[in-house]
């Protein structure tokens, strides 16, 4: 079991309707990312493509509706 580095609220992520990814800065310089569809399926861990750090996204399933409206 790897450590969760931190917990971040969904409002603090940036959502890109084109890639359908939520992103948030990682302390390595890259960005944590998680897709909206994975979140709809119950996933809540955003990972960084450049390092091992992970953050838990704090959200309620209904929070996703306003982001789906942007797609």
């Amino acid at each position, binding site marked *: 079991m790897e450590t969760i*580095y*931190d917990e971040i609220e969904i*409002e*603090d992520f*940036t959502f890109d309707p084109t890639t359908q990814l939520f992103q948030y800065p990682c*302390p*390595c*310089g*890259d960005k944590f990312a998680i897709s909206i569809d994975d979140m709809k399926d119950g996933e809540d861990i955003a990972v960084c493509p450049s390092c091992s750090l992970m953050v838990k996204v704090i959200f309620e399933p209904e929070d996703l509706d306003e982001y789906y409206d942007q797609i």
Partner: protein
Amino acid sequence: MYEILCCGSNGNFQLGIGNDEDQNELQKASIMHNGILTNQVESKPMSIRSGGNHTFLLLESGELYSAGDNTYGQCGHPVDKNETHIPVFKKVNHDKKWKAVACGWEFSILVDKDDNFYVCGLGLKGELGSGEGMRNSTLTKTTWTFPSAVESIKASLSHTIIKLEDGSFYGFGSCRRGQLGRVEPLFVGERTRPRASVWWPQKLDFGIDVPLQFSVGRDVTVVIDDKGRCHVFGKEAATRSLDTEVLSLKSMWSSAHILCQNAAGEKKILSFGNNSHGQLFPGDADLNIANFEIGSEHGLLLESKTKVSAWGWGEHGNCGKHKPMPEGVPAGIDQQVTFNYLNPLYNGTHSVVLLGAGCATSWVAISV
């Protein structure tokens, strides 16, 4: 002469060594000076400040150099779609003399010797402090005026705080978590809702009689007042009483570190906050602490004049190589990237004149 040694995360050339490979041993930064590439500078390094993927080097002469990601102009250089990165340190605005610089995720705030402020880079949450209409800019002089001279300026991910010599604090950027203190709510019809961003520098009200020292982390500001109380504004807001003299205060993204001195003159670093990867200071009380510097999730300690150690999260080589690898623990990824002890980074013959620490980058300036 001086040399700037560096290691750590380098995927965007932020170490200024001419390549984009992470480094787990100290390398000499390269500086383009008067058309000649060199590893040495004549003027003493005064400040090394880093954003997400860019780095500024300020010299005592007022010369300012930068390297790394310049996609949004955050290095203070003109944006060039064909050359988005500055691979070695390059001088910013040859005519100006600079006195301070602060960096956030993809933006920078520069202060010249006459206390004029300049902004550059990208800020979608008010990070440029130049109104809602300006979210991306190459290096631009601001119209900000303040009632007294600048004492210090610090920025984290998406907010900046300026302390003036008259003791007042000004700030701008993201404020959703309370990191800029009390901010007037937005009025929407007859209802109000909390403001998420402050788009111009405004005088900050932390509700503290006499705030003295401050530091900024990710969506958090830490303030120490004249009664020795340490207040956290933002995530995990709290107030603690410190019963020792505070010499300085610095923040990682998710923890705070206070250099204290007791009545006997002994120094120690008091840490609180996130310890997921050994970020809280691991040293004991009888260290000879000369200086320390704090990065996104790691720290550097200078003992005596020539010995630098690192602790915290070191996945990109920013804490050096494990010396030795801790025994008795399985070598999982967390163990490999966690330095929950003081790992030697520099132990040479040259005096260390300055430390710097950024987003998984470490900097040691030496006198040669």
